[in-house]
């Protein structure tokens, strides 16, 4: 690791620390005790094996939505629609179980891959729409992908309320066991320490996806094209790279990753389709991608940090604190990039002198 990378890491860490201090000031202003709150949050997310496992469970969808945002942002495609793609992924995976395309007695070895495929495809479709509109009509993808979020939520609600409602409740019936991603607690018979641990197979999916995306971005020809378009679209065009096709493909890959996050969340945690399956995983993915400097492997530890924030945030008042902290972290992060750039300029100038 060269010096500038270390500096970047230090500045990112500094930005998080500054954000926590600012968040503490606001907590104090609204009558809370910042120190006690932060200690509570740390204990509630890392204090025991049980909560650590819950933190990893929360980090799982974040790794996937973070990757979804990172791959699109690499090409300077602003996919703000990971939230909607997450919901569509959850819908696609549910459709396999609830339509039902596959019966409850299907082997998990067939059921789970089918759900993953359906979730990824549904997410990819949701990413395809803004991607195609961008490539074909130059429609601003920020707005279109964001609008698709609201459409996705209404679409899911229709199915939750009208089609798959269980006895008039706003949720589908519970999935059969064959549609559950295995959790650590399933293996507590042979290893008692795993008793009650919620971490599920989705984490493996996320980790594998991170490695694959890292390989695509930094080691494949396609990744080189994506990076070149992002850094210098004009040079990319002169080099004969098909920007329109890459726009559509990257939006679909991004959507597929967010869709996988939705599949993993309902198959690994919720076990049914309902309205409240996401505390904004798709939006948090944006911040995670940025904090990780769009590096797929760094997204993993950053997601664990944000998983902890979301997990502990559920229990603290006022309830807006996690959202606020995410906002402050992102603001101080962008502001701190300036410090890095200023430093580089400064050295350059002294060399000239």
């Amino acid at each position: 690791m060269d010096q500038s990378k270390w500096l970047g890491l230090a500045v990112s860490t500094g930005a998080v620390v500054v954000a926590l201090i600012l968040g503490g000031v606001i907590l104090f202003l609204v009558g809370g005790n910042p120190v006690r709150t932060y200690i509570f949050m740390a204990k509630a997310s890392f204090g025991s094996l049980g909560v650590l496992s819950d933190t990893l469970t929360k980090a799982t969808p974040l790794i996937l939505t973070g990757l979804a945002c990172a791959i699109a942002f690499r090409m300077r495609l602003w996919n703000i629609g990971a939230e909607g793609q997450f919901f569509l992924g959850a819908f696609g995976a549910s459709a396999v179980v609830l339509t039902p395309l596959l019966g409850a007695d299907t082997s998990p070895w067939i059921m789970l891959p089918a759900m993953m495929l359906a979730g990824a495809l549904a997410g990819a479709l949701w990413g395809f729409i803004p991607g195609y509109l961008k490539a074909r009509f130059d429609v601003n993808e920020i707005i279109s992908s964001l609008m698709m979020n609201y459409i996705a939520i209404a679409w899911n609600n229709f199915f939750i309320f009208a089609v798959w409602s269980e006895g008039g409740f706003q949720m589908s019936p519970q999935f059969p066991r064959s549609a559950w991603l295995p959790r650590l607690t399933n293996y507590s018979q042979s290893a008692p320490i795993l008793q009650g641990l919620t971490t599920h197979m989705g984490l493996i999916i996320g980790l594998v996806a991170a490695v694959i995306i890292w390989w695509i971005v930094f080691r494949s020809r396609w990744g080189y094209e994506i990076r070149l378009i992002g850094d210098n679209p004009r040079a990319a065009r002169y080099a004969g790279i098909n920007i329109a096709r890459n726009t559509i493909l990257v939006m679909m890959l991004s959507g597929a990753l967010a869709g996988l996050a939705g599949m993993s969340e309902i198959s690994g945690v919720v076990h049914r389709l309902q309205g409240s399956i996401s505390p904004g995983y798709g939006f948090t993915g944006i911040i995670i991608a940025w904090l990780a400097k769009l590096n797929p492997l760094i997204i993993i530890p950053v997601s664990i940090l944000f998983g902890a924030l979301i997990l502990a945030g559920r229990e603290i008042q006022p309830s807006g604190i996690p959202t606020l902290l995410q906002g402050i972290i992102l603001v101080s992060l962008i502001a701190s990039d300036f410090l890095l750039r200023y430093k580089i300029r400064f050295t350059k100038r002294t060399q000239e002198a």
Partner: protein
Amino acid sequence: MDPIIILQAGVASGTVLLFATIGELFAERSGVMNLGVEGMMLIGAMSAFSVAIATSNPWLGVLVAMLVAGLLSQVHAVITIQFQADQVVSGLALTFLGTGLSLVFGEGLSAAGAVSLLPSYTIPGLSVLPILGPILFTNQNILVYLGFLTIPLTWYYINRTRQGMHLRAVGEFPAAADALGINVARLRYIYVFVGGLFAGLSGAAISLAISPGWFSQLTTSGQGWIAIGLVIFAQWNPIRAAVGSYAFGALRRLIFDIQGPTKILGLRNPFFYNSYLGFFLQMLPFAFTIIVLVIGSREAMRKRIGAPAALGLPYIRGERGL
């Protein structure tokens, strides 16, 4: 389902979008895209409502809402103008920040009781006009009338005044503006602030006039984003922005009202008999925003008109380019 009532309520509902759209139009005309409109509207709606509760003075609420949202907009201004950071990411950050602040400081506000709202008036003389009278000038909130005034004033300011010319110059060709002695950075700060003021006004229009109350994120429910889409559709023209805002306001209202009657045009109303179809109605404003963007983008391609040339780019003195 009286069309006059739908249009009347649509104009009121469109006023919220109008203010937000006009505000974003000012910022973008100066070359700064601010995607934080939703966050600024939310913090405006929250501050307006809480000040109105605390002081029983809705006008003070409007004023504070505008100032708070204007102040928030300056975070974006510093990051994008001073630090020259990416405007997209900074705008998104502003939405997170505004939403978070609104949720934290608005905790418990939704349970608040009665609050004094902004008054509504019927304009004597104008209200007896056929069709237009009942739609535009009967029992409308004072902010709706303020909206009517804003449209021609904005157009005149941007296209016919010296300051407006400076504004356009800074957004189209900042290097030339700089050479003429116009302070590019200062003007951009000012118009990002103006955008914040309007977004705050828009938020206050929701919580103290058009659909009073504080319902956390549902208070704005994506209207800030629709406003950004409308600026693109409007091709940065305030008159078109107004048409788009009122049309979307009427659409929002129609979606609400269409589920009421048992029959529409003599036919059985499916939305009355199957309330679940309402979820598809809810999609319409967002689907229409996308459609409107497609239309706007195609038109812009054909006529070769488009965004302010320097939109989204930081101005660095002495560097090549715009």
